[in-house]
């Protein structure tokens, strides 16, 4: 893992444990990494689980993929033909389907170092604390400047039309540039999100509950970002 040209670069075989020993777990601008870590499998699996593994899996449970979407990350893939960089958003096509070509390997992921006044959060909960898929998952990134939303990125484990982690651009667009307030977030959650979020009923729980929880996650996730920015600590 290294910092180069204002970007954070993480090698594909970097384990989650190795990441936990870096600044990504202590600098408030990357706070979401700590949230994701805490709810990923059990601690023992994090010694073996890798960033690259999560990114190529392309499932709703690939928590780090969801988080990295909120950092607008790029994936670098290598093959005998050379190297290419693809936005993670375009790399994950649908459930378990990525843009990785048969002769390619994922080399690293990279994303820009956020400015001061930024933070992130990751919301994941289920019937119990650990070893969970999550009712839903949401990754949130926020940059505030004098109370105004300079930058916001929101990713969920799935959105309308895609059963894999993806960004909620419309909600982002609604929030960008506005003054952060609980009412604003409430409006985004209740009025904007449902239009671009589609949830599924399965044997675990209902679409209605998942949609409700997506709203709750949006609210709590963004509020947490704001508190972290204000306090300067994770």
């Amino acid at each position, binding site marked *: 893992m290294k910092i180069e040209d204002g970007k954070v670069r993480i090698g594909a075989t970097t384990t989650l*444990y190795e990441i936990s020993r870096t600044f990504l777990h202590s600098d408030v601008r990357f706070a979401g990494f700590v949230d994701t870590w*805490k709810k990923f*499998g*059990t*601690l*023992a*699996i994090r*010694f*073996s689980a890798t960033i690259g593994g999560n990114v190529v899996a392309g499932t709703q449970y690939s928590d780090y993929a969801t988080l990295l979407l909120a950092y607008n990350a790029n994936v670098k893939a290598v093959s005998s033909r050379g190297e290419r960089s693809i936005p993670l958003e375009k790399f994950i096509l649908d459930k378990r389907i990525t843009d990785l070509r048969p002769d390619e390997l994922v080399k690293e992921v990279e994303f820009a170092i956020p400015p001061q006044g930024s933070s992130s959060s990751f919301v994941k909960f289920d019937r119990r*604390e*650990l*070893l969970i898929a999550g009712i839903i998952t949401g990754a949130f990134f926020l940059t505030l400047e004098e109370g105004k939303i300079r930058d916001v990125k929101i990713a969920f484990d799935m959105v309308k039309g895609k059963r894999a982690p993806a960004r909620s651009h419309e909600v982002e667009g609604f929030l960008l540039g506005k003054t952060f307030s609980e009412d604003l977030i409430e409006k985004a959650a209740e009025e904007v999100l449902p239009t671009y979020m589609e949830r599924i009923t399965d044997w675990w729980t209902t679409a209605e509950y998942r949609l409700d929880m997506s709203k709750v996650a949006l609210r709590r996730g963004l509020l947490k970002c704001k508190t972290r920015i204000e306090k300067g600590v994770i």
Partner: protein
Amino acid sequence: MSFKVNLKVNGKEHVLEVPAHERLVDTLRYRLGLTSVKEGCGRGECGTCIVLVNGLPRHSCLTLTATLDGAEVLTLEGLAPEGKLHAIQLAYLETRGVQCGFCTPGFMMMTKALLDTHPEPHQEQVKEWLSSVLCRCGSYHYYFAAAKLAAKYIKEGKIYFDEKQVREKYHMKVIGR
């Protein structure tokens, strides 16, 4: 296709010839007879197969032995030298939490990994690390206490205990309150 693997297990060197798909849990249990390593789920979820590979916890049911050429593996059998018990083992005994005992080796290995990394863990760390293993009999509270007690012993320099003396002192004896 077979792979030649140099594997150091509990301090002893082995040269093994294993097929590509052989899991470490099977190598340890059936080739080397180290049955403290259990298979409770085969999917890295229950933690009863956890061993230390190069000092860090690994689910041996998810590890292919062929990838471990040159690695060092530690199981419960290797925690203490012959004739001795490790502070962790004594702590698990004294805090009297053992019920069916199936998950206990997994807990003890996670405790070893925890104490190697954080010799004076606070409660949150103990819970986080040890919760890598599932226990259906419900001994969690006892095992958290055991980890804390083991940390105390190690800090006091009491790492190994004579097994015979421990048996004399504890086997079916009245202890505690």
